[in-house]
């Protein structure tokens, strides 16, 4: 009965998830460009990826959710670690591209 007083609307949950996923993809690609320009190599790159992922998630957490994950995303803690590898291919693509453009070519 409690669940029906504040019902879980599937459409909103899907929409929220899509927005978060879109933000993450875009920003992680841009962070990939910056990683390439800065000349980061090998495992520093993985650390940079994790750092930028947490940074973006933290910004979404503070600015868009106002510190309350459970209202916008079900189940709550999944927001931080469930889709870590989603933006990884784009990150690697842009990282490689800009690293080569800046450091390998003239």
């Amino acid at each position: 009965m409690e669940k029906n007083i504040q019902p879980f609307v599937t459409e909103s949950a899907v929409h929220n998830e899509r927005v978060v996923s879109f933000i993450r993809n875009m920003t992680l690609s841009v962070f990939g460009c910056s990683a390439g320009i800065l000349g980061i190599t090998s495992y520093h790159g993985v650390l940079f990826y994790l750092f930028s992922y947490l940074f973006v998630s933290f910004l979404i957490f503070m600015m868009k959710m106002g510190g309350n994950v459970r209202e916008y995303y079900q189940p709550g803690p999944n927001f931080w670690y469930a889709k870590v590898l989603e933006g990884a291919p784009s990150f690697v693509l842009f990282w490689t591209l800009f690293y080569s453009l800046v450091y390998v070519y003239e």
Partner: protein
Amino acid sequence: MQQLLLDPALRNWVLLPIMFVMILIGVLRHNATILLQSSPKRLTKEEIREQRLLQRAFSFRNNACFLLPDSIEKRKDFLVDALRSGKYLKPADPNAPKNLNPMMDDKTLENLMESMKGNMLMVVPQTIIMTWINEFFSGFIILKLPFPLTYQFKSIFQSGVATQDLSIQWVSSISWYFLNLFGLKSVYALLLGENNMASNAENEMGMAGFSLTAATSQTIQPGQDIAKLMRLESENVQIVGKNSLLEDVESRILKQFF
């Protein structure tokens, strides 16, 4: 650390064109998928009626708690009667052949065609581009990966250049193709909106969209007996409880304000 100097012409004529072509082919594939989708099938009035009754029973079961208690009773009686009596069933067509083989049914064939079209649209451009790259862009190094890999990848990634000492970080254009294949999803999301048909997310979208359209436009397996489904549904409707959210609503509202 090995330092190779690469000609800027390689960047202008190989690196950027391959990326550009792959982006364009992705956009093309998205548009082609949309254009090739067949329009939804027309159902007859009787077929729609029986499906709508089933959907009505389903949503009644899910949302009964929002109604008043005697409203629940009335709807329950009506639905159970309608589902059991078969008033809404499609009249049996004497001309329709008995489908002994559920695989050859019309509707399943159409679903198969749709999924096959989707698969072909994914596979064919990938094959074409891979052949094109192997034909024209082999035999030289164009890229340095910022991260090292193991030796097994040497044969794949340095396909045209067979040297012993070259570190694995220097790769040829086929690896650039693979990087683009997996990494352009965010670019497609930017150009085409989120539900685009060009990224591999279409596979999951295909499944989800499939089940949604299947629920609304046709029943799940066309071979199943609608009458049997209705009987099952009538039993489910009978056990809908009498809990209504509106029972204590006055005290809850008062509690909110006082």
